[in-house]
């Protein structure tokens, strides 16, 4: 599926849009980390929880469950929720 990478994480991908595969959000993030080592830990902590300021949107809907099933035609947008100065 197509994945939109936010600017703070493009040092890993070098591109705004990348391709990643998986049957769940967790699997897609794992595939991203396989392609771009280190990127997952910046978004998901060691307890497998989404980091506080990282949000995932699938086809425009916010997703909070890493085990959510995904289809290859879905579009995943990763968003940085900026706050503070």
């Amino acid at each position: 599926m197509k994945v939109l990478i936010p600017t703070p994480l493009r040092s890993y991908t070098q591109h705004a849009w990348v391709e990643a595969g998986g049957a769940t959000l967790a699997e897609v993030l794992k595939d991203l980390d396989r392609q771009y080592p280190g990127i997952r830990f910046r978004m998901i902590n060691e307890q497998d929880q989404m980091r506080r300021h990282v949000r995932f949107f699938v086809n425009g809907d916010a997703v909070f469950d890493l085990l959510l099933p995904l289809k290859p035609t879905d579009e995943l947008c990763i968003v940085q929720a900026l706050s503070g100065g």
Partner: protein
Amino acid sequence: MVRRTTKASAQNPKRSARAAARTKPARRALVLVATRKGAWLFHGDAARRTWRADGPHFLGHIVNHLVLDPRDGRTLLAAAKTGHLGPTVFCSTDFGRTWKEATKPPAFAKAADGSGRSVDHTFWLTPAHANEPNVWYAGTSPQGLFRSDDGGITWAPFSYINDDPTYREWMGTVQDGTPDGPKLHSIIIDPRDPKHLYFGMSGGGVHESLDGGKTFAPLIKGMQVVEGFDASVVTFHDPHCVRMCPSNPDRLYQQNHCGIYRLDRPDNEWVRIGRAMPKKVGDIGFTMVVHPRDDNTAWVLPMDGQTVWPRTSPDGKPSVYVTRNGGKTWHRLDAGLPQQQAWWTIKRQAMSVDARDPVGLYFGTTSGELWMSRDGGAKWACFARNLPEIYAVEAAELA
């Protein structure tokens, strides 16, 4: 000339060391600056008079510590995160021209029951013993101790303390720690024995291991806590910065939330040497550095610890204080520093000392100014300003 030096060496090792320092080939100075918005490398000439700023590196990243490995003189490690992404460690072997990210940054073990902790940021980096090349230790927030055996590329929890129930109790909660999270810091390796380690926790006291981390024990006797609390409870202790004297590894100094201390091993009771500071200034602060060749000499940068604890320069008049007799007396060193209306805060990692003779001292303020002295603190000069909030300053030398 050579004969005279040899004779001096036999009669007076300190004089000999000074003479040797003067005759060594000139080395370039390097000051590593970690800030809330990135890192800078300040390259100095041999005389430490002109400086070239190289940076920002990792603009927008919160960099808590930037350290050069003295064992190879070229490996740099940076503890970084952004305000919105998880923490990581970057490594460079070409003084920041290129950086390589850790493939496995410090991270706690996953707990099946959901009670596990998550590293918010790596706070402190310490190269291990000279006989353990590529080994590094890291302290994190919340308090965790980690080790890398491959120059900072992969990290693993070190020792048992990260998950030990007693240590977890001593670490307290996030609310017990410093405003941006409780921290494990001041990881110190005895140069005589790689298995002899110390670390400090804010909060959670000072701890020592004699067996390479298999066991640790608190080392808090003599340390005071905030009024009304029980000093026998490890949780309440808040060492801000612990230093070991390179010339005498049996002597430790400490700037604590509650005073300045010295400890001479094998004794295990800290002595509050800050009692000898002027009453109007007090002995509260964050940072402390020690002389590379004289275990009686140490410097502090006092912060106002009265009433609501502003932790700014007392009376708006910043000064470094030095002791040259192990803490019996202290002397004010403020020549060149602002004489009024300078409400500085200097954090625990933001002061450093080089190994020159005379010694160079460096510190950075949270208002983004870098100051230095080429003469042990007798005179001060600002050599960079308008930087972001400075978290850490480390002096190093390049061949």
